[in-house]
């Protein structure tokens, strides 16, 4: 049964407290002596006043109104929602990590530095790149950092005319925004009929103004670029660099490496490929790896070692500087490190193998009831088109909501843009055959429901904790914060 959930602001009573600060044991001094005139706050903030137990119950209830990987199948395309091993959570919050200050002298943080160092070696091996920075806090941040490094490289060679970055239409969603932020112009490259980058269009677009091509391989269609060798040649021959968006690395670990494919810069989403939880939208981590010629431009500091002593190396005169207040999301790096240790080379390759088998298996089941464009052997994901269903009266978004009613998290909808009514589906390596069968069954039922009563499907969800949102009312009168009447 549906239960109305109160806002924090409707709870509590004046005078309650949920904090237990240490009592102030230093000699008292009047506040007016400590705060300059007119800088003291006069109106207290109108925040709720709650006891500990009220706060715990409120947030615990809210958490039960949320859907995570631990709740159920989460085939969100290009997001690699794999299982997040519990032991990693336990390790990452141990006091030896949680109570570390980023400005401690190197000799007092040898464990942290060693872990960073080890992780860098592992990522280098996994990707075939020469050095990594862990500073970027997520994927898009990695993209921006990578482009800044590329920019610094061209600038260092006094090559100032390169003002364009090429992006295939099947690339990861954040790429164009990143390119704009880095001050470049975006040039979109279409796909050919097999879903590859259109090589002729690429040749046409590449010139002496090309700074880089950003490629997601496998693409968001779940397809490996069959002509990657030629793509790399075309870009490199024009003096451009090749950027690898690692959003979909989960498909190829141990099978091929971006460094061996000729990529100059790589970013990884270790919150995807290396199993760390997505936190409802972060914290993530987007390490950036480069080949030899780009090392001098990486952000400071890098971690190095002399004999057995690890240290932060700030001596990089050509560096782009810092991209994070400190060294990136350390906790996420620890979790990913744990994952690599638990998996080893064999386990990581097995993960990619299973991610690919699962995607091909699930797509073969769904093909019976849905249209899958670019239908060939795929890697880790596939894209359904609900265009035929839309004609019957239910859109991709409606199908997504109908899946919620059946206890499944929906795929990514309406992306990539080249597929109409797209449902980008990534089952990943940590899902059992039984789960995939159950999902296919649910999708089959939805297809049948659309045939019988599309209107009802279009009115989904029917069984979620809240009813359908009144988006018209919300758009007409946006309320961005709670305020006392």
């Amino acid at each position, binding site marked *: 049964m549906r239960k109305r959930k109160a806002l924090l602001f409707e709870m509590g009573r004046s005078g309650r407290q949920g904090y237990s600060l240490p009592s102030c044991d230093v000699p008292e001094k009047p506040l007016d002596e*400590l705060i300059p005139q007119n800088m003291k706050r006069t109106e207290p903030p109108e925040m709720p006043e709650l006891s500990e137990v009220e706060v715990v119950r409120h947030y615990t209830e809210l958490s039960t109104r949320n859907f995570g990987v631990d709740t159920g199948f989460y085939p969100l395309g290009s997001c690699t929602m794999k299982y997040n091993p519990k032991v990693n959570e336990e390790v990452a919050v141990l006091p030896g990590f949680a109570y570390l200050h980023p400005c401690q002298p190197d000799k007092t943080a040898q464990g942290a530095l060693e872990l960073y160092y080890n992780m860098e070696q592992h990522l280098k091996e996994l990707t075939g790149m020469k050095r990594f920075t862990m500073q970027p806090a997520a994927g898009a941040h990695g993209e921006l950092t990578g482009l800044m490094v590329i920019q610094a490289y061209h600038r260092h060679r006094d090559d100032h005319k390169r003002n364009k970055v090429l992006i295939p239409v099947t690339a990861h969603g954040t790429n164009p925004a990143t390119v704009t932020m880095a001050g470049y112009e975006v040039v979109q490259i279409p796909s050919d009929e097999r879903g590859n980058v259109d090589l002729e269009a690429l040749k046409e677009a590449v010139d002496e103004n090309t700074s880089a091509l950003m490629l997601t391989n496998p693409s968001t269609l779940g397809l490996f670029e069959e002509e990657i060798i030629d793509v790399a040649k075309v870009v490199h021959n024009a003096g451009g660099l090749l950027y690898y968006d690692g959003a979909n690395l989960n498909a190829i670990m141990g099978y091929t490496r971006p460094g061996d494919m000729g990529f100059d810069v790589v970013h990884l989403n270790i919150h995807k490929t290396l199993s760390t939880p997505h936190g409802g939208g972060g914290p993530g981590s987007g390490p950036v790896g480069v080949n030899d010629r780009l090392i001098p431009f990486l952000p400071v500091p890098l971690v190095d070692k002399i004999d057995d002593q690890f240290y932060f190396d700030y001596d990089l005169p050509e560096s782009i500087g810092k991209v994070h207040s400190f060294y990136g999301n350390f906790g996420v790096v620890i979790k990913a490190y744990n994952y690599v240790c638990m998996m080893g080379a064999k386990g990581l390759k097995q993960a990619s193998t299973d991610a690919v088998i699962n995607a091909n298996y699930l797509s073969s089941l769904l093909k019976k009831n849905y249209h899958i464009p670019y239908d060939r052997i795929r890697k880790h994901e596939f894209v359904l088109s609900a265009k035929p269903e839309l004609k019957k009266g239910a859109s991709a978004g409606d199908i997504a909501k109908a899946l919620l009613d059946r206890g499944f998290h929906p795929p990514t909808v309406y992306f990539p843009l080249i597929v109409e009514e797209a449902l980008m589906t990534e089952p990943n390596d940590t899902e059992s055959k039984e789960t995939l069968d159950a999902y296919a069954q649910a999708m089959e039922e939805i297809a049948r429901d659309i045939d019988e009563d599309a209107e009802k499907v279009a009115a989904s969800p029917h069984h979620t904790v809240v009813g359908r949102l009144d988006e018209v009312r919300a758009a007409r009168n946006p309320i961005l914060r709670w305020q006392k009447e």
Partner: protein
Amino acid sequence: MSEKFVHPYIPNSNPKIQREMLEAINVQDIEELFASLPDDHRFKGNLELPKPLLSEASLKKHVHGILAKNQTSSEYLSFLGGGCWNHHVPAICDEIANRSEFLTAYAGEPYEDHGRFQALFEYTSMMAELLDVDVVNVPTYDGSQAAATALRMACRITNRPEVLVAGSTAPNRLSAIEGYLYPDIKVKHIAFDPASGLMNMDDLSGKISKETGAVYLENPAYLGYMETQIQTISALAHQNGALSVAWADPSTLGILKPPSNYEVDLTCGEIQPLGLHMAMGGSRGGFIGSPDEERFIQEYPSRLFGIAPTTHNEWGFGDVAWERTSFANRENPREFVGTASALWGITAGVYLALLGPEGMRKLGENCLKRTAYALNKLSALSGVKAPAIGRNFFKEFAINFDDTNKSVREINNQLMENGIMGGHDLSKQYPQLGESALYSFTEVHSKEDIDCLVSVLESIIRR
């Protein structure tokens, strides 16, 4: 076919199950699935990674071994601050941050992720109260990104290509801001007074022009002192058609006026003090706050959550002005939005809900009074100049050791031998301050802790 092993994280890794699935898709050999990889680019060797540990027990042993090489504020008395502070993290913050429904979620819609939407809406509402603004975004990566984005927003709103930034801005943050704004926005530094640390108003007046999109200041400044000229700085920005952007530490705002009270347009900062562990500087989130005006709303790249009532008259939540984000506007985006720090936004919300207005006031008082006590004690030590710069401190100040004839490095080494982590060495970041260090005092430092620091320092200096 490669050799198989059954891994606890991979349910179909059992060869029998795998065979069933391959048969279902009509594939004889796994290699067929990877046939599209060009042979030249196939990785043929074995990745040189450690052998899989496979058991939790071995993993924990391995990581504990690495851990043991760290020394932390759980064993040492630490006075490090400077952008990452040693505040107490209530147990409930960890508890809620580890609720797996929050932790393992991602980009769900307001239906299945009603809880996350509500928790973040409540976080932004409480932050809005604390900052005394109308709108607060869902957290960015960290405060540095929030500051840079606020400045980018200001330049888009004013359509101007340059920002003036307080020369006293935290050096790491400044480096990151400059990186984010490059190449289209020029960053100029405004000098600060070497004694008071305050912004040099003559320099500001000289540099501000029709090119200036924003003037940026921090309060408290990185070196701990309060900037007392916010109103004047803001007014000067406005007179010149620029916006004012101010950095604020949320832990100060139960007791100090928020920047908006000085006519500041955009407030930004870091939420680490609100219930997030220091974690080597890796648990962070940034905030931006502004008035509820279209010109601001339309320039936020981040998600903004608002109330969207449901068909059943419940509190529902949704994205406000979604079409402005890079999710919706892929072709013509301003800045990206993606995975950032949502979980830390929820956690900071828990912290604010626990403390409430009275708790935030007491937190502020605690920091102020302990810092004042420490300053009083430390300034009495011979050879010690405390403060090294500025006056009016919230939770940190710089100490100069030049007259002790000892370097900060030597002093900190000797403090470590006595179980104390001394302040952050400023000698490289601020050569003009000589041998100085930034010391931070929060609610976790008792009188006894401060007395201990003072007496150990005294004996080191005397040596």
